[in-house]
């Protein structure tokens, strides 16, 4: 932030001298006869350029590595120009159709020409997109691609196409084209919250058996909240202990906090798998000690519990470190003074000590929550079926189903959720109150 600051200062300074020069316009000249205003302006421009040069590198870096990818993500989530590009003739005359009866010969001809003239790869991609609007499109186009070779372009095309596949005579398929006729769509966003378009482009709920994402959103929020609270509850006493112990001992204990932090995430996850699975260390020990019977082994891994436990352990250092650094800065004399003035230790702790740790709590909570909400690798490995989060859905659509539009839309929603939370946090606690260490 330094260059920006200097730049501002320069501007402020020179604006003030501009005012001074204006006040005596026409009188002030420099030694070599140039009006002072002009000379000042020249030097101001030089300073401005230099300041800009200083920030140009970082600004370009941020632009290329942060702004552009996010813009591309957003672009991808609303882009729907593909169908228009591959089926230009069909889309051009689509408006002329009344949308009730089966479309006439020109529409069939346009579709035939589009499908036969487009590249095969493009057809495959576009049929995938069309399948999102109405399932069946993909197989219909695939089949038509083979059968269209027999069509005689001199004869009327409509009956031949319906003969090739009777689904071409189904008005529903033609209606579903209307959803895709605009070059941008909010459809992916609706899809990400279990809504969809009907053929008149009204937003309706998905069929009951296809509603999944709202559940994933809810679970993501639930897991992040629980993990954040658990981290806070576990980290607070430890941070306090580390902050109040003599430096010699606390540095030693600090290794316990930093060691997991420095260890590979995968190593830690695998270790948790070994410990928590049904035949794992923990369950074996509990059975061995006779606390639980052999049939009632605790289900701690490959489910919701697994995600919670492992995520808490992974994110705990993110809470301890800011808390510790804030607590180190609190003079112990405050607590002693409060107790001297008659407060019980508990009261002194709550009324005097706790409020001073707020910047650390805030930093830790926001750090843990934001990292947790987009977590992917831990739920993927230990979450099993009911411990999956929205990050896993994004990964699934990126890698398996290749529905990048939906993945991007989910990413944008996640990003906006984080920004909103950040804004709320700023309103309630204040960002400048945050201390990361």
């Amino acid at each position, binding site marked *: 932030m330094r260059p920006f600051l200097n730049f501002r200062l320069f501007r402020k300074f020179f604006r003030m001298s501009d005012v001074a020069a204006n006040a005596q316009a026409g009188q002030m000249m420099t030694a070599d006869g140039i009006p002072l205003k002009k000379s000042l302006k020249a030097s101001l421009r030089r300073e401005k350029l230099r300041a800009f040069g200083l920030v140009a590198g970082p600004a370009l870096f941020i632009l290329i590595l942060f702004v552009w990818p996010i813009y591309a993500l957003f672009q991808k989530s609303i882009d729907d120009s593909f169908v228009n590009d591959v089926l230009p003739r069909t889309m051009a005359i689509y408006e002329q159709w009344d949308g009730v009866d089966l479309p006439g010969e020109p529409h069939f001809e346009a579709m035939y020409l589009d499908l036969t003239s487009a590249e095969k790869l493009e057809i495959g991609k576009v049929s995938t997109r069309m399948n999102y609007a109405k399932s069946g499109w993909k197989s219909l186009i695939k089949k038509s691609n083979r059968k269209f070779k027999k069509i005689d372009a001199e004869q009327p095309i409509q009956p031949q196409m319906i003969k090739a596949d009777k689904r071409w005579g189904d008005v529903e398929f033609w209606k579903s084209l209307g959803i895709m006729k605009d070059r941008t769509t909010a459809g992916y966003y609706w899809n990400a919250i279990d809504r969809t378009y009907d053929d008149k482009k009204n937003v309706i709920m998905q069929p009951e058996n296809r509603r999944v994402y709202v559940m994933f959103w809810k679970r993501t929020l639930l897991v992040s909240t629980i993990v954040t609270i658990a981290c806070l509850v*576990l980290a607070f006493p430890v941070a306090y202990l580390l902050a109040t112990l003599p430096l010699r001992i606390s540095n030693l204990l600090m290794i*316990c906090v930093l*060691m*997991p932090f420095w260890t590979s995430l995968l190593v830690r996850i695998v270790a948790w798998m070994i410990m928590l699975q049904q035949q794992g260390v923990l369950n074996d020990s509990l059975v061995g000690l006779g606390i639980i019977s052999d049939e009632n082994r605790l289900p701690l891994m490959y489910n919701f519990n697994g995600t919670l436990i492992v995520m808490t352990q992974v994110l705990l250092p993110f809470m301890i470190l800011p808390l510790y650094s804030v607590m180190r800065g609190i003079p112990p004399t405050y607590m002693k003074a409060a107790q001297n003035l008659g407060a019980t230790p508990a009261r002194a702790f709550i009324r005097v000590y706790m409020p001073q740790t707020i910047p650390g709590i805030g930093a830790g909570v926001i750090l843990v929550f934001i990292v947790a909400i987009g977590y992917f690798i831990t739920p993927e490995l230990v979450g099993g079926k009911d411990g999956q989060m929205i990050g896993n859905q994004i990964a699934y659509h990126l890698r398996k189903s290749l529905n990048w539009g939906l993945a991007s839309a989910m990413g944008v929603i996640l990003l906006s959720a984080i920004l909103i939370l950040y804004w709320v946090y700023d309103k309630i606690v204040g960002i400048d109150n945050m201390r990361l260490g």
Partner: protein
Amino acid sequence: MALPIYATTGQRIWHYTYLTICGLVLFFLVAPLIIVIPLSFTSSPFLSFTPEMLR
């Protein structure tokens, strides 16, 4: 952090409970690292503890 001599019984109990809690949390943090070390010597193709490890 040392307990003052004038601490009451309640304070003593809380102090040691508190230290236990901290110990447990720190153990929770390092447990996966501790478990990985013996396992890296396992001879079986799966990640499991074998009786040979005890010898």
